[in-house]
């Protein structure tokens, strides 16, 4: 799961159960960060470090009456661009045709609306505050959200004191070694856009009961649960079924579809995103999300073992 999303997620929750965190100051910072990620308009340049690869991107986040929108544009290497708007997301990559994915009509922003169970969350993450640090010439508060097992990433946020925006986000492995880092080198923030004081976040969505099909997971890593189900059509008209799974911060999806060409067989990664795919009964199943490879492997292996 991406840092901002994570942030987002995190904080819908904090409103009612901040005390569950070890550090209430950290919880308040994260709560504000979550709201800012949604309501504050900005434009800036950030660097993305993954492994030994470094890239620079120009990004903007707009806020308007019709909803928010973002654009990302690579400043290094082959030209890449992405725009996200109310209808979905369109992406131009150097190694594929332009890709447009419409936002599912039922998508309600699970990240923003999810209410975390802090007692459960504290079983899998530890939250702490680490003082202040300067990023892009601005003062930030540093807060970490550390994973307690290998099935989720940890995060370290550098949250702008003035706006609440995360100006640097480190994604951390279980041993606290950074996997990827995203950092603004300069940023222009719309001073008129401030996070509104919000009320209680909406209740956590209750997913429709499953049909107990043979592809549904019989086991998930501790703390993860199915939070949403959806169906959509493939280009050839076949139905693809989706389960969205989250522990309240990290998330991934399980997709089941009729076997076809061009599906993932085995494991794959893109940055911190992991994916695993294989045949489960009469379906091809793909598990994908911003979680460690161990997580998607655990889920897929569990589904395969259930058929044995």
């Amino acid at each position, binding site marked *: 799961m991406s840092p901002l999303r994570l942030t987002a997620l995190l904080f819908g929750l904090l409103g009612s159960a901040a005390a569950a965190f070890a550090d209430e100051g950290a919880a308040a910072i994260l709560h504000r960060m979550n709201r800012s*990620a949604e309501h504050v308009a900005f434009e800036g340049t950030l660097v993305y470090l993954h492994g030994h690869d470094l890239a620079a991107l120009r990004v903007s986040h707009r806020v308007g009456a019709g909803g*928010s929108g973002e654009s990302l544009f690579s400043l290094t290497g082959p030209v890449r661009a992405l725009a996200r708007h109310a209808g979905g997301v369109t992406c131009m990559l150097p*190694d594929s045709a332009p890709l447009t994915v419409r936002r599912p009509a039922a998508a309600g922003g699970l990240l923003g609306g999810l209410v975390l169970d802090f007692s459960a969350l504290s079983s899998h993450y530890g939250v702490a505050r680490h003082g202040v640090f300067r990023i892009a010439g601005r003062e930030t508060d540093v807060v970490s959200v550390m994973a307690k097992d290998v099935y989720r990433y940890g995060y370290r946020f550098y949250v702008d004191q003035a706006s609440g925006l995360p100006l640097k986000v480190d994604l951390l492995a279980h041993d606290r070694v950074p996997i990827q880092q995203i950092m603004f080198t300069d940023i222009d923030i719309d001073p008129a856009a401030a996070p509104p004081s919000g009320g209680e976040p909406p209740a956590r969505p209750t997913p429709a009961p499953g049909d107990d099909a043979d592809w549904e997971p019989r086991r998930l890593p501790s703390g993860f649960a199915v939070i949403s189900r959806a169906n959509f059509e493939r280009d050839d008209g076949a139905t693809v079924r989706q389960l969205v799974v989250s522990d309240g911060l990290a998330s991934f999806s399980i997709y089941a579809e009729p076997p076809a060409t*061009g599906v993932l067989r085995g494991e794959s990664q893109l*940055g*911190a995103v992991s994916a695993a795919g294989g045949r489960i009964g009469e379906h091809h199943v793909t598990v*994908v999300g911003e979680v460690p490879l161990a997580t998607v492997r655990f889920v897929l292996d569990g589904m395969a073992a259930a058929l044995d």
Partner: protein
Amino acid sequence: MSTDLEKQRICCLMDGEAGRFEAAAAINDLLGSPELVGSWERWHLIRRALRREPNDLAARNIAGRVRAQLTATSGPTEPAPLPRIPHGSRWLSAPVGGALAAGMALLGLAVVLTRPVPGALDGDVQLAATTERWQQQDPAVRNRLDRLLFNHHEQMAGPARSGVGLYVAVIGYERLP
């Protein structure tokens, strides 16, 4: 119909000359217009060829798009009896000819990219060098994984949530030469 101004703005964007606050507007123009997307694709391919950067033509599905364009502009796909064509007359109807012309334009571009270009491009022009996004050589697999990931992100983020953090890994990922 895209305006010259929009095309000019896309050119500036591609050359890295878009103004500090113009890039976002240019990207919106670009991704909201199929015509501009087409222009972008063509410029992108040519630019990469001139720079001797690899172009994965299979990934761009050029053959499929030519076929789709032919199908779209030539009417029913059922084979019709060939009309008797008087000697010296036009050998194709206008729509089919136009479709073929469009297809040949794309195919011509493909030829340019698959052959060493003389002069400034002496040396090897890499064709379809292995891309390592997702560590998958098959572009169909990469495309499908992109779709599944985007769909997951959109399910989680919702319309109001910032997507910057979600997609940084997708846009930021690149292989060094």
